[in-house]
């Protein structure tokens, strides 16, 4: 073994490692470091405050509201997106012009930028002039306040997220469905399996890696929701749509409290970390891998 042979593999992975360390590892540790300070990002004096930022955060009722908003948003978005996408996929998993068209149509939101989507839906959900309320009015129901009332604002944002994510999720499910070998279906139909039995005993287990993948991806995505909130509600009304990442942004870049924002960032990191571990531990036992 020459020196070159020993070094070559490290040389090969070096670019990836350098980028990873520079843009992922270093910021994480820098954030942890900053969370121990009272600082505004630019002032020459940084005051060390120990764990005071964390104590303040946990005592702050707004922060608890933010955590509960984020949790509700995530649970609703993940269950609705994954559930509806599975139903759609079962329906769309056949070859005809119509089904292909629907598949293309529901996939289209996925490729539109979130900023455009947010502006579009702000207009659709306008309480006075929006298309949604116009339709509701025509149907003779009482108009909804959508984003303008604490009772409906968070659910309105969930609606947008589901609309945006549905097509992609359905597409992944369809791919999953099509990778199930046809002979298993044949065997099932020879045994005169009822549709529900086929679904629960055959399709679901065979699809579990796909479900697992989508749940994880959707969950992490929803936990980091930011654009729709920044554009559509800015956390209001009455804090009803303020979520973790928006809260971090607000404190870091509007109120210039980078230490406090970093402390919230650390908490986000811990939560996402714990959830990922739980998912891998619990669900991986049940996931059926071929």
């Amino acid at each position, binding site marked *: 073994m020459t020196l070159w042979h020993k070094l070559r593999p490290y040389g090969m992975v070096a670019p990836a490692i350098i980028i990873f360390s520079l843009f992922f590892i270093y910021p994480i540790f820098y954030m942890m470091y900053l969370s121990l300070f009272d600082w505004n990002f630019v002032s020459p004096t940084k005051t060390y405050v120990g764990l005071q930022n964390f104590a303040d955060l946990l005592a702050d009722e707004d922060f608890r509201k933010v955590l509960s908003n984020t949790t509700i948003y995530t649970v609703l978005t993940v269950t609705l997106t994954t559930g509806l996408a599975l139903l759609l996929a079962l329906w769309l998993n056949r070859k005809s012009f119509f089904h*292909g068209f629907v598949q293309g149509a529901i996939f289209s939101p996925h490729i539109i930028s979130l900023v455009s989507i947010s502006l579009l839906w702000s207009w659709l959900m306008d309480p006075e002039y929006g298309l949604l309320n116009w339709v509701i009015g025509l149907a003779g129901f009482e108009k909804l306040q959508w984003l303008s009332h604490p009772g409906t604002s968070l659910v309105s944002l969930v609606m947008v997220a589901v609309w945006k994510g549905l097509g992609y999720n359905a597409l992944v499910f369809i791919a999953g469905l099509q990778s199930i070998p046809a002979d298993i279906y044949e065997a099932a139909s020879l045994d005169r399996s009822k549709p529900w039995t086929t679904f629960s005993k055959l399709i679901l287990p065979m699809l579990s890696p796909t479900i697992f993948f989508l749940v994880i991806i959707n969950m992490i995505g929803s936990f980091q929701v930011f654009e729709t909130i920044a554009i559509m509600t800015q956390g209001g*009304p009455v804090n009803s749509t303020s979520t973790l990442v928006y809260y971090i942004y607000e404190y870091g870049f509007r109120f210039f409290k980078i230490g406090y924002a970093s402390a919230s960032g650390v908490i986000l990191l811990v939560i996402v970390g714990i959830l990922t571990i739980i998912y891998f531990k619990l669900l991986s036992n049940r996931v059926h891998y071929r």
Partner: protein
Amino acid sequence: MIKKLTALTLAVFMVVVLAACGTNGAGGNAGATNAAGNTGGANSGSSEKMVIKYWYAFGDKIEKAKLHMVDEFNKSQDRIEVVAEFQGNYNDLHAKVQAAFAAGNAPAVTDLEIASTGVFARSGMLEELTTYAERDAEQLQLDDFNPGLMGNAYVDEKLYGLPFMRSTPILYKNVTMLKDAGLDPEGPKSWDELEEYSRVLKEKGKIGMTMPADIWYYEALVAQSGGQMLSEDGKTAAFNSPEGVAPVEFWKRMASEGLIKIPVGDEAGATADKDWSNQMSAFKFGSTAGVNGSLEIAKGNNFELVTAFMPANKDYGVPTGGCQLVMTSKGSTEQKEAAWEFLKWMTSKENTIYQHKNTGYLPTRMSALETEELQTHFKEFPQYKVAVDQLEYARPRPMESAYPEVANFIKEAIEKAILDPNTSPQDALNAAAEKANKQLGK
């Protein structure tokens, strides 16, 4: 065949979508391309030219006026080239300046919303202008700036900014609607009159006003009630005093009777504007920056627009608003000298007249008010003059470092008090004051 068609549908969608994004992108990038072009030209033209960056907020008429003045400055001399870059609204602009400063890449000159002067100056991001102003006293004529606008220019008695596009909130009235309802177009001059007017308008199937629960308007109504937002030393909240509670009680009562509408959320301001433009409401509060645009709307929708002081409670009163021009502290001496030249140019008498006539922002200099040009302008369009006269009752905005956060607490409290019938304005503001005191006391 079917697969091909599916692909075709997708392709069509993508083209439509990309086209849409492309249009957006073009709007956003136009400034950048332009700026890059300028830089290139400057470098090839003369190598000794000092190139400095100027960051500004807001698009449309305001942007047009700013770019015009920058262009004139670049043409007026051949030593300095100012590259103007659009940065969104004030919040976006502030966040970007802060990040750029931390990265050592801040613009030499930037717009700065007046209430944020404190936090920026105290963290050492701004160049103190006192010595520059003393040196060029003759040319600058600091005394010539309207004294009502200088309150936010000083932080701890040091000069940090020059008044640029400054405003006060004013009352916009649809006089055609008032006349149709048989109301005196001179009013409403007080809160009581505003309520009476709104009652009459409600009977006609309209409403008095749609307004967002905006912190700036709240500051105005607190001033009209004779109160203060914060204590004298800025260490404690004062907005939960009776004078601070009165505006929220007034709004809540009016809203619950359907006399005014208070939309909340991010679109609230836009909704208020739309209701007024569509003649659903007779009044709106708005910055004087919108006079030019509102006159066009009134003309387009065939109604007569008159502007007036915001109605008084105990007395008239408004905060000032808008932005001043500041210099960042990290540049070289040459850059700072160039930036100072630019600052003087942008705030000159001629330019303050220009920006006033093209947007509605206040003329910042007393000498500008005396010019023939503005006197004729005021005679022709008295709507522009109201904000100038109202300056007599104007006060600066709070500049405490924690104020942006405190403003958030207050906004939340107001929304809660108005939306939730079980929350009294006093309780909501007390809770906000308690949170605010923790931050202000630090």
